[in-house]
């Protein structure tokens, strides 16, 4: 399931969706949140822009690749857009499988590719004004392990 939405998400409900099949033996979930600092700035909130249509396709493609690579029961990606306040949830990635290794790997794979390939852009509100977040080399480097 892929979802790009303004609304917050309920981790409990998404977890239940990951566990619907009785062959699920391991579930891994990741939640990204708005934190109070980034790249040396005090952050008070975020604005997330996306490219409607292309963003969803990019996430579908990443999910497709993860499913081809590991035997997954369910894979869920939810990413929020619009104005987000400090401590709010930004992104959810959850993977369920018969065994934990597939679920752990799929979750990391999806996050690594999402951070490099999915058209989302963060603008931070900081104590000294607004700034677009710059892409980081460590995120590009993270793809090398796959």
């Amino acid at each position: 399931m892929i979802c790009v939405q303004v609304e917050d998400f309920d981790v409990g409900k998404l977890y239940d969706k990951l566990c619907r099949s009785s062959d699920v033996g391991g579930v891994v979930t990741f939640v990204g949140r708005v934190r109070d600092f980034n790249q040396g700035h005090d952050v008070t909130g975020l604005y997330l822009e996306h490219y409607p249509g292309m963003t969803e396709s990019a996430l579908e493609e990443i999910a497709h690749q993860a499913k081809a690579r590991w035997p997954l029961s369910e894979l869920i990606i939810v990413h929020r857009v619009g104005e987000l306040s400090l401590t709010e949830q930004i992104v959810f990635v959850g993977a369920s499988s018969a065994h934990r290794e597939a679920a752990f790997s799929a979750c990391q794979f999806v996050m690594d590719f999402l951070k490099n390939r999915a058209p989302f852009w963060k603008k931070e509100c900081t104590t000294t004004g607004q700034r677009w977040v710059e892409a980081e080399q460590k995120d590009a480097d993270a793809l090398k392990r796959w």
Partner: protein
Amino acid sequence: MITVRFFASTRELLGTDLLEIEDASLSVAGLRAKLISHGANWERGLANSLVAVNQVMVADEQQTLIAGDEVAFFPPVTGG
């Protein structure tokens, strides 16, 4: 007609999110060069931006555009 869209910091630098261009025989590289010739902000906004055609990232900018294509320029992505 080719639709050209801009996102995030690229959009803000250019002060527009949408352009329509009549010339449909350009390559992606040709379109980028044509837009950059509009001025300093355009050069700053587009010189290093990523580009997608019909919502797919472009690997070869020699690709020729055809009428009805949607081209998008944007900075490296920062979601997650």
